[in-house]
């Protein structure tokens, strides 16, 4: 149990996918203008991560390993992730059209979000059990949501700040992202993985 908690905390803070491992930067910069949409995006991605984490674990341990097909890992993972994103997209379109249109192109782009694929591959490399994989995926998703929401909060505040003209827009966003990343680096050593 303690081990699972450590895995979770480790995925959220110490090895935050966005700010420490630099995966999934595209939505981190693209959908972090408003806290609402950032949270929505984070939840959608978390959902995809947990589902794909579970599905890829099953495929890895019941198909790829028994049949000796490790070379199909990337291919099958992408297949699974793409299908799951389709399902999530349809689900969101039905349940929350506002969020669906707010996320726009970034929703189908979860398919190619390297954080999702990276999570699945890392879980396989670490030889996590099924439960560990789910907890790891959940932690990663929460970490992703945290990074997006924190960034969105800062960017909402920056709308009112007097930013030097040359830095407005992408410039100040990238600087902010770098500073946030530095801050998250401070978590390393919090727990020994």
């Amino acid at each position, binding site marked *: 149990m303690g081990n699972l908690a450590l895995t979770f905390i480790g995925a959220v803070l110490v090895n935050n996918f966005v700010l420490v491992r630099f995966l999934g930067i595209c939505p981190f910069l693209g959908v972090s203008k408003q806290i609402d949409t950032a949270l929505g995006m984070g939840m959608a991605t978390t959902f995809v991560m947990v589902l794909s984490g579970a599905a890829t674990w099953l*495929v890895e341990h019941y*198909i*790829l390993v028994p*049949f*000796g*097909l490790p070379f*199909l890992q990337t*291919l*099958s993972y992408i*297949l*699974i992730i793409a*299908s799951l994103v*389709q*399902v999530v997209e*349809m*689900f969101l*379109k*039905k*349940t929350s*059209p506002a969020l669906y249109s707010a996320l726009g192109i970034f929703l189908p782009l979860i398919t190619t979000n390297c954080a999702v694929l990276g999570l699945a591959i890392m879980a396989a490399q670490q030889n996590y059990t099924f439960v560990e994989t789910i907890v790891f995926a959940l932690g990663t998703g929460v970490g992703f949501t945290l990074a997006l929401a924190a960034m969105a909060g800062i960017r909402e505040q920056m709308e009112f700040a007097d930013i030097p003209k040359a830095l407005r827009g992408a410039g100040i966003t990238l600087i902010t992202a770098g500073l946030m990343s530095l801050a998250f680096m401070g978590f390393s050593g919090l727990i020994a993985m």
Partner: protein
Amino acid sequence: MSSVVLVSLASMAGVGILLGVVIAMAHRKFAVKSDPRIDEVEGVLPGVNCGACGYPGCRAMAEAIAKGEAPVDGCPVGGAAVAALVAKIMGVELKGGSRRLVALVRCGGGRAEARETAEYVGLDDCRAAQLLGGNKGCQYGCLGLASCVKACPFNAMFMNDNGLPVVDKEACTACGLCVKACPRNLIALVPDDMYVHVLCRSYDTGRVVRSNCQVGCIGCKACERVCEDDAIHVTDLLAEIDYDKCTNCGKCAEVCPTKAIVIEEGRFLVTKKAAS
């Protein structure tokens, strides 16, 4: 060896089929009922997503039409044919026959007619040349660097040997992108059944026009006097045709001393050489 291939194929096919079934089930469960007319309207729209209607792509236009926010004849590219189909789907009647429009380049001063005062060696773009004033004595005439041709998504424009853009009337869809691309505002959308045109946009005095170009409008008002339909007027030293009144009689073109007014029938509006 072949067993590895077979196992790979079988396992991936199995996973694929399974996921396909899941998606199909989700599609049925989470189906969103949308206005079926949206798909139908989108089907008859040209589908080039040029944005000339003011909506981001044909799909958005179809949604707006289905909601009643956009007019059924709002697609400038499809013209009357598409408007009729859309109107049929939407169950409304088209008001009046709107005329098909085509782009018209209103300058006849090519290399043979217009005096060049400089050699332009900058960026190959009219908008860049415009910043430097162009290479012609005439400050209103075509810069000849084909920004309009490059802007045309339908291959309906090309540059002729005389350094002027020519519109292929059959291919032109009146999307208006060339109109926006021209920094000198030389291109206008005119009804395609009109073939008497003033090919000059110069507001200079007659003397200046004559020194710069052999086919410029000098503002002599001869056309205005001869017109029986009150369709052509000289304002600020430039003749302009009111296409709502013009009857294509061509009398103004006959009396025009500089041949700035041309009669042209056919697919391409090619300016006559000044000598002819």
